[in-house]
């Protein structure tokens, strides 16, 4: 991580309140957008280098192009230890290209999960050891239980609870369950001077 701050503590805390673990691997940081107040735990990996190549013959692979965002993450997201975010790739008009991965606010990604979705909405809980296949579309208020394999191109509508290999709808998020997706509190529990979780 490139940061001017004097190294102190396990996390680098940016001006926008992001807490990025020093042990996290962010490749191609210039193509990774963080919305703020997002926690990135150690051993998290984000592949910002896999940017969109519009033309097969395009030279924009340098990634210098300003508009080329590979991974964008909203506010109050929580990327647990060892998870991996990477843009999905596919053949397009005969050529291979990666497409950006967009993640909304209050998205929790469990430990050891791999996310290659096209979009992940807001208030989404992705459990531990989940594999989200390429170009999956996950809407808001979705809960993905641990160990789920979301197949490529799957669309998961709002308020779904999915699980299984491959993922299938196993329930709906009840009306009273919306607040549980809030990640403000857990945001406070990590960082260089963490506070204990509220009971």
């Amino acid at each position, binding site marked *: 991580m490139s940061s001017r701050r004097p190294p102190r503590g396990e996390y680098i805390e940016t001006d926008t309140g992001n807490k990025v673990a020093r042990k996290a691997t962010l490749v191609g940081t210039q193509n990774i957008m963080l919305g703020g107040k997002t926690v990135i735990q150690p051993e998290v990996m984000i592949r910002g280098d896999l940017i969109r190549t519009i033309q097969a013959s395009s030279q924009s692979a340098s990634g210098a192009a300003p508009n080329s965002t590979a991974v964008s993450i909203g506010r109050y997201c929580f990327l647990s230890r060892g998870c991996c975010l990477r843009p999905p790739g596919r053949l397009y008009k005969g050529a291979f290209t990666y497409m950006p991965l967009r993640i909304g606010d209050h998205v929790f990604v469990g430990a050891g999960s791999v996310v290659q979705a096209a979009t992940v909405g807001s208030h989404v809980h992705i459990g531990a050891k989940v594999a989200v296949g390429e170009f999956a579309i996950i809407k808001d208020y979705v809960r993905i239980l641990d160990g789920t394999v979301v197949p490529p191109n799957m669309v998961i509508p709002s308020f779904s609870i999915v*699980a299984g290999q491959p993922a299938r709808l196993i329930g709906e998020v009840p009306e009273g369950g919306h607040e549980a997706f809030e990640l403000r509190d857990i945001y406070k529990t990590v960082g260089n001077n963490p506070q204990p979780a509220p009971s």
Partner: protein
Amino acid sequence: MSAPAGSGPLPHRSVANIRSPSGAGHGHRHQSGPSTPLRPIPSNFGSPSSLRADEEMVIIEFGTRKLHVGFSGDPAPRGCVWFGPDQQRRAGDFREWQADYRYDWKSAAAGGLWGKDHELWQYDVRGFDLGLVGDKLERALREAFTKYLLIDSRPRRMVWILPSSLPIPLLSAALDSIFSRFQPPTVSLLSSPLALAVGAGVRSALVVDLGWSETVVTSVYEYREVDSKRSIRGGRMLVEQTHNLLAKHLPETQKGSGDSQEHILSFEECSDIATRMAWCKPRHVSGPNPPSSDTLATVQEQDEVESGDRPSSKRMGSVAIPLKSSPSPTSLELPFDALAEPCENAFFDSQYSPASFDDHELPLPLLVYRSLLQLPVDVRSLCMSRIIFTGGCSNVLGLRGRILDELSQLVLERGWDPVQGKGVEQLRANSKLKRRGPRQAGNGPPGAASQSDDGDEQDGVWHDAANTVPEADLIEEQLKRGTDRRPRVEGEMRAIESLGAWSGASLVTHLKAPAIATIDREVWLLHGAAGASKAGDVDHKTQRQSLGPGGLMRGSAAGSAWTLGVWGAS
């Protein structure tokens, strides 16, 4: 959760409003005037199309292991909900989906409960929590409503298709739960054999229901259940047998504790294998061509003959069956023939002499034969050529053919009775004589039913067959004079396909014929099963008569005579 909730949110759902327009509605639909008060039928299901539009009738077919649910008028149910352990968990309990979760079937199966958690109910209601039946039913129905029917909880009239042998405590438990939780204005009860007959387009039939907990043979004559016999040889036994087969072939190392009672494999796995792999050998033929072929050839494809005497030697080779629930996962190599054993043991037990069986465990061919034997001649001749196989086990490959085959063999060996026997011979000998079939069989002997009911053998029937009443002919004449002069198929052994009880009921309700019994929500909540005019003490015929009022009942105020139909009797 109580009455105020149920009392229809929408005024037009109230009984009075439904009934009065309905009469008119029919007036329009059929160019004749409104029906005489004597004929209450339309008021039962009839409702102005306007009303139908916004409120379909929900038809539910009850099975021991699953519910079929859909709308009246559809050719098939919209959804099917199975009962299982996963359904019996608390809301929000998704453990079954956790990677590390393994359903502990052994503890669930302990105490002879192997597979019981996949059943809605057991017919033996002793020491059985009826409230639980209600709960299971409610949850299953909710799932069906939200997942398949996509309807909300506004009150809808329901039609239930039930096995006619359903014990009344179970029925009333079900009614309690549904009436208090779903507020259907009415629930109409239909017996599955009748629905099946309608679903096959016949008025009489011999319904062989190869069900889960038992096999029931019901003879339906002119839309009436004349007689019904049952045997415990059903799906459960088949699965048990499958388990025993697999357990037998497991290597010793896998057997675990020598306790023969306890199961080595999970019910889920065994039932899965049973439905996938179980098949039934054709009757192994001794001597010349099975005469059955001749009987059937007239109606059926010649294949029947082949299936009759195909050399079973062809069945070689073995099948690999993966087992996960065994102590250590393994794959079992079984000779293909072995997979026919469970079916053999469960339904035939041919190694024992017919005499050695109790009435409740008759092998199926014998069961069918007996029930045919007990029928009066005319009824029998109709039924034997309208055999409907249904129930889960009718899917076992070859089973239906085998049963029919053995049945015809039995008939050949024993005949119905001397005279009838000859008649059959002649029929076989000379196809021209077939014309005689109908007329002869048509002669309904009086009192045959009563005779046949007290299970006494050919003798009784034979006597009746002798003195036939001419008057019965009139009906046949009527038939002849009717639109269609083709005679009814009679006296031949013949199996026909039914759309199934659910579709049959869908037809019935669509045609707005009355159900056997219709129960009003208010009345039920007031009186419960006690409110029904007990038909228990009266025999079939008079009981059916009591259905007249039964038909009326819906319109009538609380307290008037109404019944639970056949179920009242059990």
